[in-house]
């Protein structure tokens, strides 16, 4: 019987053949935490009595959620993370480095890897043909100290996308459409395996959007076969040697198949307060939605190409009076590329506020908390009530193109006639 990609990866790491539904104990290739989940993981490692890490070179700590720190308590917890890194020899990505998942994509994720992170969007690493999944601090503590975890082999959903995305329509729109179609729990406990001509043709920065948001459909992971585009991305970051091929068997068994014709898609907006509450931009609900703050960034859409799309729209234009534009590049590398390409100048000239790399306003504790009754349109991956620090505010999700043009008009706007 043919195997899905997750069955292959889990099988390799369990040292035995596995099928969906089975439990397995697996070796972990990379375990990581961020500054809001790391302190608890470290205290659990101590509680469990571990003194040394099995493979410190495959453990990473990222200070990205409150970065630079936003409160004295958090600054103090950062001290503990730095000490742990120093004492154990694991990797530390401190203030200024960027969002954990973005850096994992640039520097650490490899095809065939099994990756565990104490952050729900760890699933983004699946774009490389890895099994990457988010877990809580205690599970990741076990993986950090022990180098292993236990898993249920997820049943796989085959997402087959055909047709060419229209100009002005992106992977973000495709993923919001998919989540709207299957629901916020439509892929609970499952693997979303992305195949078909459209996703094959997507560049890595767009594949990463799809796998990043797999969790927003409840999935354990999202995964792509590796190919020439994976190889080129790894080569761009000096990691060509990390490339390996992975693909599902032609007769792999899927629990469900979902077919999407990408050519039919319009830009999609997720309305408050759930990611599956979507509308196509031509829907009457999208007319005259005024926006107080635009936030462009995050692990979902804070890559150079996203900033470039936004800058091309914002160039020579100005943010609407009464609307704020906040931009936070995903990583140091992206920040520097954007600086060198003149994008940051364009943002500042347009009236935007550019922050240092990190999670920025997304987790709700800094640099862009919303006021009572305010509406934010963002490139983020989730729009839950209170997400951006105020339960009395409203978050809409969209692509960087929709966000950029809406910054100029001050209301949700279709980008297609501007690009």
């Amino acid at each position, binding site marked *: 019987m043919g195997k899905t990609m997750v069955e292959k990866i889990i099988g390799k790491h369990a040292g035995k053949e596995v099928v969906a539904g089975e439990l397995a104990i697996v070796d972990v290739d990379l375990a990581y935490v961020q500054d809001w989940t790391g302190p608890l993981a470290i205290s659990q490692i101590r509680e469990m009595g571990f003194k040394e890490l099995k493979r410190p070179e495959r453990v990473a700590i990222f200070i990205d959620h409150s970065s630079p720190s936003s409160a004295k308590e958090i600054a103090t917890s950062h001290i503990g993370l730095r000490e742990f890194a120093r004492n154990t020899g694991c990797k530390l990505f401190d203030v200024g480095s960027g969002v954990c998942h973005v850096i994992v994509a640039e520097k650490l994720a490899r095809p065939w890897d099994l990756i565990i992170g104490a952050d729900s969007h760890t699933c983004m690493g699946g774009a490389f043909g890895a099994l990457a999944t988010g877990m809580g601090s205690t599970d990741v503590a076990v993986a950090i100290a022990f180098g292993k975890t236990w898993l249920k082999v997820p049943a796989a959903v085959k997402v087959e996308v055909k047709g060419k995305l229209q100009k002005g329509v992106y992977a973000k729109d495709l993923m919001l459409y998919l989540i709207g179609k299957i629901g916020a729990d439509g892929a609970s406990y499952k693997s979303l395996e992305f195949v078909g001509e459209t996703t094959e043709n997507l560049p890595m920065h767009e594949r990463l959007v799809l796998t990043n948001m797999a969790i927003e459909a409840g999935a*354990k992971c999202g995964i792509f076969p590796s190919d020439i585009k994976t190889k080129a991305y790894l080569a761009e970051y000096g990691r060509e040697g990390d490339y390996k091929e992975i693909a599902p068997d032609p007769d792999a068994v899927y629990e469900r198949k979902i077919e999407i014709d990408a050519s039919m898609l319009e830009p999609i907006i997720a309305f408050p307060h759930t990611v599956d509450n979507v509308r196509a931009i031509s829907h009457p609900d999208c007319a005259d939605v005024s926006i107080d703050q635009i936030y462009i960034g995050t692990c979902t859409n804070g890559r150079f190409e996203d900033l470039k799309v936004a800058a091309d729209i914002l160039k020579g234009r100005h943010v609407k009076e009464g609307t704020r534009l906040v931009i936070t590049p995903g990583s140091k590398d992206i920040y520097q590329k954007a600086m060198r390409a003149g994008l940051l100048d364009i943002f500042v000239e347009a009236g935007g506020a550019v922050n240092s790399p990190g999670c920025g306003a997304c987790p709700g504790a800094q640099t862009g908390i919303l006021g009572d009754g305010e509406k934010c349109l963002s490139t983020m991956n989730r729009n839950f009530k209170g997400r951006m620090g105020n339960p009395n505010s409203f978050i809409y999700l969209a692509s960087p193109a929709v966000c950029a043009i809406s910054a100029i008009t001050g209301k949700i706007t279709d980008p297609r006639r501007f690009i």
Partner: protein
Amino acid sequence: MIQKGRAWKFNDNISTDLIAPGRYAHLRSNLPELAKHTLEDARADFAPNVKKGDFVVGSRNFGLGSSREHAAIIIKMCGTSAVIAKSFARIFFRNCINIGLPVIEVDTDKIDDGDILELDLQKGVLLNTTKGTSFTFPPLPTIMTAILSEGGMVEYLKNHGDLVLKA
């Protein structure tokens, strides 16, 4: 052991942002303080009034969103006997087991806010004494039962020294 308490009913899609809001991230190093805000944005009356033994009763997709284990921890710190829902988001479900908080999937449409519930975890039976109804639920995988019954992952690893799938 039978646990008894009242049901605190919640809607579909209770996210970890509602359970443990990001604006209180600085309190993660002070869990008793953070626990005072448990589920605050979903039901402000929960944390000040919940009693030891009570049950958090969700609906569909309880615990979706971020991996923050603090969400499970502070629900437990409030004295909650168990979280009951029609369905759970997977990371939250696993976090509850890892910290020794029972999670039970039953049709919670048949439980109203304020109903008195009795849980017998070993037998796999939940009674709604207010309505005179009962629910049965299937056992967890062996490794999860062991982690839960031993008080969580820390105790489990201290006891076994390793992860073992079968007892």
